[in-house]
């Protein structure tokens, strides 16, 4: 039975009373917003973990075997990286150093703030991000840094040429890049390994960086990453872990999900949103179905099958869910932008996440429809006479 040209009963039932229509869709929209907020926050936290790391350029990554999370310092001996470089499939290696909680002085004020300092050898192409890669020459000058444009405002929004104090030294901002806030840190600066050394080991007679936080491995063109991982694992002692760059990012992204109840907490939040959506949808449908019990009984008397009546209620639920979703997704888009701008967290509305919220919303509404349709499905046309 095609629906072409048939009376759009479900649509009419949903929309005919403008006030009721706005209230119903508004209710579902609110629940959808709730879900999007939860999904957004969780992903903001997870994604935040790899925004900076994602800017690195590597085929394989070496980290300390006891390292759980990138931003808790756990360096490994630099010799491991040189050993890896001996493998025939490896073209080059670049050590990356990280220091946490380095004091930074607000350029205009005297307040001290703490940031994360990442360092590399400007002769290496350690970063894929052109904003960093393009500034390697500038970084070769002593006491220059690149600063994160998205860092929290209390760092003072430094621009090119601004000078201030980092740790014990006076540094000059030689450029900016776009990273953002993550859970462990609200700002990042990038500098050369030499400047880094002077900052972390001031006054050392013969300073040298012996311990590396992240070892980047670049393979020769055409080399097989999987085979190289195996070869390096076999060649290197057990105190380092060898990962492909992709696995490394996935591991970092999943850290909070795996090691903290954060995932469960937000999942519960999303679920609550779905329950609210379902509950609102049920309330609306139930009231509507009660108003129309006699009408549904009449439809049955006319020769409509019971399933056709269930379908009307289900359609109404899906219309509510869909409209609520569209309004909610639009609202969340704005909300995410606002939050990103005010907090520096990157919250993206990706198709996959939107799809998941849509699926949850429609599912909740469908369940509501099943519950609300009980009465009209059971309505006896003989009682209408």
């Amino acid at each position, binding site marked *: 039975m095609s629906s*072409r*040209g*048939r*009376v759009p*009963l479900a649509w*009419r*039932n949903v*929309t*005919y*009373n403008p006030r009721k229509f706005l209230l119903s869709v508004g209710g579902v929209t609110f629940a959808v917003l709730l879900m999007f907020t939860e999904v957004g926050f969780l992903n903001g936290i997870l994604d935040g973990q790899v925004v900076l790391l994602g800017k690195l350029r590597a085929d394989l990554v070496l980290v300390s075997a006891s390292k759980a999370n990138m931003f808790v310092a756990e360096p490994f001996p630099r010799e491991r990286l040189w050993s890896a470089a001996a493998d025939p499939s490896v073209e080059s290696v670049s050590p990356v150093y990280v220091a946490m909680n380095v004091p930074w002085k607000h350029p205009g004020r005297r307040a001290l703030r703490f940031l994360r300092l990442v360092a590399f050898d400007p002769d290496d192409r350690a970063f894929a991000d052109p904003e960093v890669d393009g500034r390697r020459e500038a970084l070769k000058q002593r006491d220059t840094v690149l600063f994160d444009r998205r860092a929290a405002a209390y760092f003072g929004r430094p621009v090119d040429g601004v000078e201030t104090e980092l740790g014990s030294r006076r540094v000059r901002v030689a450029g900016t890049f776009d990273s953002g806030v993550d859970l462990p840190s609200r700002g990042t600066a990038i500098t050369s390994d030499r400047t880094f050394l002077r900052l972390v080991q001031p006054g050392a007679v013969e300073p040298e960086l012996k311990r590396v936080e992240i070892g980047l491995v670049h393979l020769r063109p055409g080399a097989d990453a999987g085979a190289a991982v195996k070869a390096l694992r076999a060649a290197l002692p057990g105190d380092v872990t060898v990962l492909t760059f992709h696995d490394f990012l996935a591991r970092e992204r999943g850290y909070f999900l795996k090691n903290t109840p954060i995932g469960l907490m937000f999942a519960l939040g999303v679920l609550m949103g779905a329950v609210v959506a379902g509950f609102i949808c049920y309330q609306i449908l139930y009231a509507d179905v009660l*108003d*129309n019990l*006699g*009408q549904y*009984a*009449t*439809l*049955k*008397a*006319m*020769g*409509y*099958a019971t399933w056709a009546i269930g379908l009307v209620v289900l359609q109404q639920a899906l219309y509510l869910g869909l409209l609520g979703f569209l309004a909610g997704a639009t609202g969340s888009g704005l909300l995410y932008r606002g939050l990103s701008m005010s907090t520096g967290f990157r919250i993206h509305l990706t198709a996959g996440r939107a799809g998941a919220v849509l699926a949850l919303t429609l599912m909740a509404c469908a369940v509501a429809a099943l519950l609300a349709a009980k009465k009209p499905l059971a309505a*006896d*046309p*003989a009682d*209408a*006479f």
Partner: protein
Amino acid sequence: MTTTPSVACSGISHYFGSGETRKQILFSCDVTVGTGEVVVMTGPSGSGKSTLLTLIGGLRSIQEGSLRVLGTEMRDLSPAGLIEARRQVGFIFQAHNLFDSLSARENVQMGLDLKDMTPRQRRERADEMLQAVGLGERITYRPGALSGGQRQRVAIARALAPRPRIVLADEPTAALDGETGRKVVGLFQQMAADGCTIFLVTHDKRVLDASDRIVHMLDGRIASDVRPRRALQLAEFLSKVPAFSTLTPAALSEVSEQLREQRVGAGATVVREGEAGDAFYLIGEGSVAVTIKEREVATLATGQFFGEAALLKGEPRNATVTSRESTLLYVLDKAHFDRALERSGDMRKQLLEVLFQRQ
């Protein structure tokens, strides 16, 4: 007059509830209704008339007895078959049961959506029906903007739009004023003329006047089943019979109720010369030839009668009567005839006079 029955109930009994609380609602009801008849169902509430109609409409399953609707035995239908059967029936409920969200046209179209029609045909048919019930100006109105009577007419249009073969209506004219009421009754009559059988539960005088039959129910039984127009016609015919000319209207209608219908084909011999007379005949429709000793002496037509002479005189038939065409006869048995005569004092003499005149 009718040929094929549209609805034939025989021995229909129905019960509500089960076990201790089981209550019998219908007691072996028999009623046969021909295609195109307009039947008014009367009786107090709880008399079973609604239950009988819901059985005819396929809204309940048959428990006992046989019910043939449009040639289909309802007892044998599966639930899906019942749903299918309902599509031939137009229901008009007392509560109009219109969707507030739909316009008058869309409410009517709900009934048409089950039909194999193009969207354009459905819309046109809906508009046509709304015009027929006098709502041509209100096609796009929602029920909330219509009066009670207008809503009732939308419900009527919805039931009639799919051209059902049976209409079951519960007080369809209750909320209608004089003019629209007449319009709706006219619509029912027109549908009936087109072969739709119509059952109405009503107390509306306008509808009673337009009905072919009045079935009165009492305590789950059919208490009476009369055809007011036929009864009137027969009483008129009978009043012209000299033997009955002194009967009161009440007595005439009583006699007319004793009449039995008999349809004979063309050329059939109804009465044969020389045989014993056992019945009196009234011609309802058609004509017959009267032959005495193989010589045709007369032709009798609608409203005329024959066969009384043999009954009155107690002699054998003095003529042969043969139908000229398909003829409907109303037959009064000798016993009933005699009883009627007893009530009409001086008739014997009068009748003999008539007989004399005829010869």
